[in-house]
């Protein structure tokens, strides 16, 4: 059905939703587990949502300059690993030996979709106004200092600091 309206229909771009805040805790350093937080964080920023990413434990590999380009994907322990376009399971006994190949394959699949690599993705998120934070306890444990981290990481902060900064935020733990 078609209706004609003389008052223009204008999308409400700056509605109350823009008061939303999102906090994403990135605790994994496997290539496949780096992406969910990046994709959701980037999407949230594009919707005008204030977004904070907190890197902790293995998630540190996403922001440590010497490691962020070398994240890996292992099919070991992942019972949902199939060959692309097939329902065949990857035999788990073979999986531990296949990290290199699986990483290469996953990187190609991601690139084919036009999705950036992890460091470029974080560049994008920072450019969109996203806030990057590193976990104090993890930094102490891994003997990492601010100098080891991407320059756009705003600080190494405690869990309590992060909770305070993200008051009222929706929170995702990955």
């Amino acid at each position, binding site marked *: 059905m078609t209706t004609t*309206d003389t008052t223009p*229909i204008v*999308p409400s771009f*700056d509605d109350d939703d823009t008061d939303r805040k999102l906090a994403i805790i990135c605790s994994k350093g496997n290539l496949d587990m780096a992406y969910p937080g990046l994709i959701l964080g980037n999407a949230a920023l*594009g*919707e005008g949502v204030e977004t904070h990413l907190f890197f902790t434990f293995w998630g540190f590999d996403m922001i440590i300059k010497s490691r962020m380009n070398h994240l890996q994907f292992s099919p070991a322990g992942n019972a949902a690993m199939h060959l692309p376009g097939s329902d065949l399971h990857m035999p788990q006994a073979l999986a531990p030996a296949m990290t290199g190949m699986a990483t290469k394959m996953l990187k190609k699949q991601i690139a084919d979709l036009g999705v950036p690599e992890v460091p470029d993705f974080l560049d994008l998120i920072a450019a*969109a106004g996203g806030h990057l934070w590193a976990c104090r306890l993890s930094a102490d444990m891994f003997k990492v200092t601010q100098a080891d981290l991407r320059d756009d990481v705003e600080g190494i902060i405690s869990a309590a600091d992060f909770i305070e900064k993200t008051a009222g935020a929706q929170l995702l733990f990955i």
Partner: protein
Amino acid sequence: MPVTTLNGKAVNVNEEGFLTEYDEWDEDLAKVLAEQIGIELTDAHWKVIRFLREDFKTQGETPTTRRVQTVAGIPVKEQFVLFPKKPGKKMSYIAGLPKPHGCV
């Protein structure tokens, strides 16, 4: 789908107000669309809008902010300045195109 009157002519839009017919858009209409969401178009805005129009024509879908950066060379940071808070949606609205469907 509703029809609405913009700049003195009837145009087809979706329920949110995005134009649904590629050919019903022209640059005068873009000014009206921009004004409705509080944006005054400068040369920098036009560069984005014209890229969106061209890219949609060849690709069949609205480019994402990431694609505007990588293909048109307009940094995401600048896009957020030109089209505050929701650049992907705002630029496509002004360009008379659907919202981008891509996740990144």
